[in-house]
């Protein structure tokens, strides 16, 4: 479940702007997700690309090998919105559970 949530967050980040791998980990860190390495998100990006949620553009980088820049496909946009909706439901349910537990 956590992997799915991270994938959904990655889609949401890409929904807002075109980014490459490392930029995604930076965004996650500034948003408060803690230290997530590129090694963790790379397999997720592979999966998201395989599911046709992402478009890849190669752009030159100052260091040498070209960087992969990601944008969402139409399916990817739908999936990002679907994730946000399901997250609302899930977080409400979890919060409800915690409140109920602390009231007992």
């Amino acid at each position, binding site marked *: 479940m956590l992997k799915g949530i991270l994938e959904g967050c990655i889609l949401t980040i890409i929904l807002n702007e075109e980014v490459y791998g490392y930029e995604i980990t930076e965004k996650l860190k500034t948003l408060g997700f803690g230290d997530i*390495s*590129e*090694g963790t998100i*790379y397999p997720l990006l592979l999966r998201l690309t395989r599911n046709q949620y992402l478009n890849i553009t190669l752009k030159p*980088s100052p*260091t040498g*090998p070209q960087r*992969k820049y990601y944008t969402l496909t139409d399916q990817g946009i739908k999936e990002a919105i679907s994730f946000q909706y399901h997250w609302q439901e899930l977080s409400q349910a979890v919060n409800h559970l915690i409140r109920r537990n602390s009231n007992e």
Partner: protein
Amino acid sequence: MSKKSAKALLKRNNLNEEKMSTESELVYRDMIIYFRFSELTLFQQEMVRSDLIQMIIDGEERGESIHEILGKDYKLVCDEIISSFPPMKTTDKILNTLSLVSMSLAIILGIYVLSQLATGLIQGSSVLTFDFTMSYLFIFPLNGLFVYFALKYISNSSFKEKTKSLSKKKEFVGAYFILILFVAMTITLETLFNQILFQTSILAMALVVLVLTMIFLFINAKTEY
């Protein structure tokens, strides 16, 4: 994805990986070997490799170590990458096993064909025959097992903790010892079970070796692995 595009990517990767630091390169090599023994096609491996090279070189430019770039559990990262690809089709698995079996059989049979040919020529026999002895029934599977476990060992030798893994010298001595043991077992089996099961001409056996090699080459050309 053709093997040609995979090979083109492979060449570009080999160029780019030069820029990597030595510390990162050790981990990187382990990962590449791990992928080579996985179910990924050549093109998939090279695609992943080029992504890894880009990640590592970019990260080093930012002053990060490979720990920080990829996380601490490299094997987990590799396993996650492998599982993100669709699984190998059963037909491809069968073809792969078939090609491996063909090749190892071709090699060991070829060795025996050559040795019996040499013996026949030296003895000056007029008719060159190949004696298929009972020992071959044991030696051929033994050879197969040996190849299988050797490959398994190499693929699992990545990512061992440096403290737990044997030093290179000990590994070499161990491998050498096992090889000697294998040869000794082969010779013992040959002596014990030297009853001839059937005889054919050397030429016929050489043809069998050729056919097995062609099977291997054909499957290799047709699949992506």
